[in-house]
């Protein structure tokens, strides 16, 4: 009788050892799946860079707009400024981070001041002044669509000078920096 009980106990013990083994393998598999899932999520989420070039180009255009017009009026000395002095006045430089051989060629900015002419469709009369700086070659890509091309922001606004002459200001800003923003 006692022997019989011993045998049943031993068998149960052996059984529970087997179940534990299966459970351990199961737990290992679940752990592996969860870990792989987390790694996949991190790679997917952070693996692709955020494309902030349009924001950068808009901020650049805003900065230029502030340089041209302030408080509703064109800057009083705007027509007497030369190109280099205008960008110095705006405190803008095109230095970029040391990355993949980038130089001063990742930006282009162009500002044009026109007479306001309401007989024309785009209200742009005579071109009175133009300032530009940066890599002019980027301008050719503005008509192209696709994430590998530079981002262009082209804005226009209305401004007057202190003698109440009306003007149209065009600001074009372009940011390349493709390697850092697109993969």
């Amino acid at each position, binding site marked *: 009788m006692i022997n019989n009980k011993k045998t049943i106990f031993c068998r149960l013990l052996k059984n529970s050892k087997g179940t534990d083994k299966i459970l351990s393998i199961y737990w290992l598999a*679940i752990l592996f799946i969860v870990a792989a899932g987390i790694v996949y*999520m991190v790679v997917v989420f952070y693996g*692709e860079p955020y494309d902030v070039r349009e924001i950068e180009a808009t901020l650049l255009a805003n900065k230029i707009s502030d340089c041209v017009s302030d*408080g509703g009026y064109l800057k009083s000395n705007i027509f007497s400024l030369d190109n280099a002095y205008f960008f110095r006045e705006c405190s803008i430089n095109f230095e970029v981070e040391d990355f993949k051989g980038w130089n001063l060629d990742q930006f282009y900015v162009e500002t044009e001041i026109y007479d306001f002419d309401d007989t024309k469709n785009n*209200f742009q009369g005579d071109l009175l002044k133009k300032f530009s700086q940066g890599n002019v070659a980027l301008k050719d890509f503005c008509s192209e669509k696709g*994430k590998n091309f530079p981002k262009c922001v082209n*804005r226009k606004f209305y401004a007057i000078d202190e003698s109440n002459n009306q003007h149209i200001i065009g600001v074009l800003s372009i940011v390349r920096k493709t390697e850092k923003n697109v993969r």
Partner: protein
Amino acid sequence: MLDKKAQIGETITWVVATLIIVVVLLISIFIASGSDTAKKIIGIEKNAQYSRESDRAVGKSFFSYLLTKESGESVYSSLQKPPEINNFNGNLAVKIFKELHKEDYLKQIWFGINLKPNDFFNSYAPPTHTRFFIKKIKLNSKDEAMLMVAYD
């Protein structure tokens, strides 16, 4: 017999637990991969765009418009007395806001006083499901000139 029942119970528990783990994982992967639906849920935007909530170019046009003078009187002054929107300031507003800025704001751009309809911009009826921003300036204690721009 009792042993078997216990085993079945335990197995069901683990199967359900596994299913829950897998479902939670799949949902997380779906969100992290930034599908359109997921983007709407948590606002992931890989192609970040500048928010137009306070457009610098429109703001500059607005203030220059108010400062523009005709016969020595600024648009701002003319908006303060009836008829607030006259031929000069109304037509100029149409040229600047409706036409010059139409490339940027195809949805709607409206100028007027206290949301009252006028001959140049009709009544203000914002398109449904659009976000807009307002540029406004006080004309007197009760009137405001408003520029409303639907941008998205």
